């Protein structure tokens, strides 16, 4: 119970500190501008405006969410060590694992709020063009949210032991690899060598399978989406985040603060 209270205290403070930072607002504005652009484009083109807006909009909100998680996340712990704000905090009777977990929840809440705000804007736009938000669009938004959360956890993990530049590099590499993880599997299937196949399969297993969270195409084109298609990735996302956080705790537990 005391642990929950302390984690909560760290989370609330992290949330406040993140949300009051102007950087988030700028990224939000950028995403809004992109969606407005999509709207303009949808007016000029021949296709159905609702489809174009939701197509562009879903991609924009997901990428903007990922970008926010990435660029604010990579300085999260690193910045606290660099600016020494962490010293009085860890001088309290606060175990480091609680600090890391609290940091994640606070930061993830802030990112999620911005992500929700951007999608609200998207739904508003869809309502304006007479489309409205279907259950399918909302499901797509929900699953992409897990993608944002995983990037949040990854950025936090890297920021707990390396500089922002390296963290950005690692996170972006994993993000891209994760988006193309399916191709790796296809390549594996073609590869006759058992040994390298084993390695590639391991790599595939560890990479975040971002493809699992992508039902944007189905949502835009109103294709059928099963309940399983939503539940299984949710479970996968939760387990993946917990795994990354566990590694972050292990890495951060004994490290020297400068």
């Amino acid at each position, binding site marked *: 119970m*005391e642990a929950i*209270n*302390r984690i*909560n*205290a*760290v989370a*609330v*403070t992290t949330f*406040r*500190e993140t949300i*009051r*930072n102007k950087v988030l607002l700028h990224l939000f504005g950028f995403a809004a501008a992109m969606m407005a652009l999509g709207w303009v484009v949808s007016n000029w083109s021949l296709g159905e405006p609702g489809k174009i807006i939701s197509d562009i909009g879903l991609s924009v909100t997901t990428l903007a969410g990922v970008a926010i998680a990435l660029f604010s996340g990579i300085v999260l712990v690193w910045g606290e060590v660099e*600016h*020494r*704000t962490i*010293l*009085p*905090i*860890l*001088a*309290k*009777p*606060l*175990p*480091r694992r609680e600090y890391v977990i609290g940091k994640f929840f606070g930061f993830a809440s802030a990112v999620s709020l911005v992500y929700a705000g951007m999608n609200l804007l998207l739904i508003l736009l869809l309502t304006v063009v007479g489309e409205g938000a279907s259950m399918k669009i909302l499901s797509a938004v929900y699953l992409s949210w897990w993608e944002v959360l995983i990037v949040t956890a990854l950025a936090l993990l890297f920021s707990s032991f390396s500089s922002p530049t390296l963290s950005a590099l690692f996170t972006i590499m994993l993000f891209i690899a994760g988006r193309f993880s399916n191709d790796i599997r296809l390549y594996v299937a073609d590869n006759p060598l058992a040994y390298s196949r084993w390695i590639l399969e391991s790599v595939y297993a560890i990479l975040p399978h971002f493809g699992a969270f992508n039902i944007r195409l189905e949502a835009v084109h109103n294709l059928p989406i099963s309940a399983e298609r939503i539940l299984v990735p949710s479970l996968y996302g939760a387990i993946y985040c917990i795994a990354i956080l566990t590694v972050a705790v292990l890495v951060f537990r*004994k490290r*020297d*603060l*400068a």
Partner: protein
Amino acid sequence: MSETAAIIADSIGKTYYLGVNRRPVEALRHVSFEVKAGEVFAFLGLNGAGKTTTIKMLLDHARPSTGRCFLFGVDSQIPHSRTKVGYMPDLPNFYRFLTASELLDYFGRLHGLHKSERTTRSRRLFSLVGLEGRENEPLNGFSRGMLQRVGLAQALIGEPELLILDEPLGGLDPKGRYEFHAIISSLKAEGRTIFFSSHILDDAEKVADRVGIIHKGTLVASGSMAELVMQESGFEVELRHPPEPTSLHNFCASKGWSYTVSDSITSITVPHEENLTELMKFALDSNLQIYAVTPQRKTLEMAFISELEKWKQ
């Protein structure tokens, strides 16, 4: 050891490895000391001596390469050891977008305090450190000295039995220093233990019971203020004398005491307390007027320098 010491540093060493070729830098070498509960301990040393590094080990901000530390008997690598500890960093820095009261509330929560308690304590602490009226301003508008005051308030929020303060007087103006001394005295009167680092000897001299002197990562001396500072005590006696004080000067010369004469006052330095009685008797017998008797103390500065010089040899 009957009572648990507030701090035990047991042979702590810390080696940092710098650069790509991992050049070792020994920031601390087998530093051992003990701070008893209720004591004010000043940890003195020049820039780069290893004061902050020692404090990092005490708070588990970094792990020692050798040795261990204990706070109230609990291994400092266990977070629980910091339950009754308040820490103030040198050059304190806090979240820029929080207000001072949000920050204090946060630290109170980390100590497991309830809302009502956090509110009362915050109010009291803001007035103690002289920040009342500014508590709802964001911290990015605070000056260095103001952050230092927030730092002290934050250290006190858990009503700690042990305070670990790294250069607490660093950014303070004269008024702030004076107030700080008063706060330390009152905390000491409440029976709290205070460990603070400084390179300003005056501050240590005013408030500390015991001092440790660290130089290039090695603890070169530690002991009570009395031991370190009053070793070479003697007395200066000033006597008002008649125009021709020959007998007095002869008496001093016969005893081997040095003296200086100015106008109608002779000041004599005697090495021991017994000599004082002798001289007094002589003065009374000769009808000399006693003007002043002052005990002579080696200043901490002199002690500090002589310890460093001893160490060099």
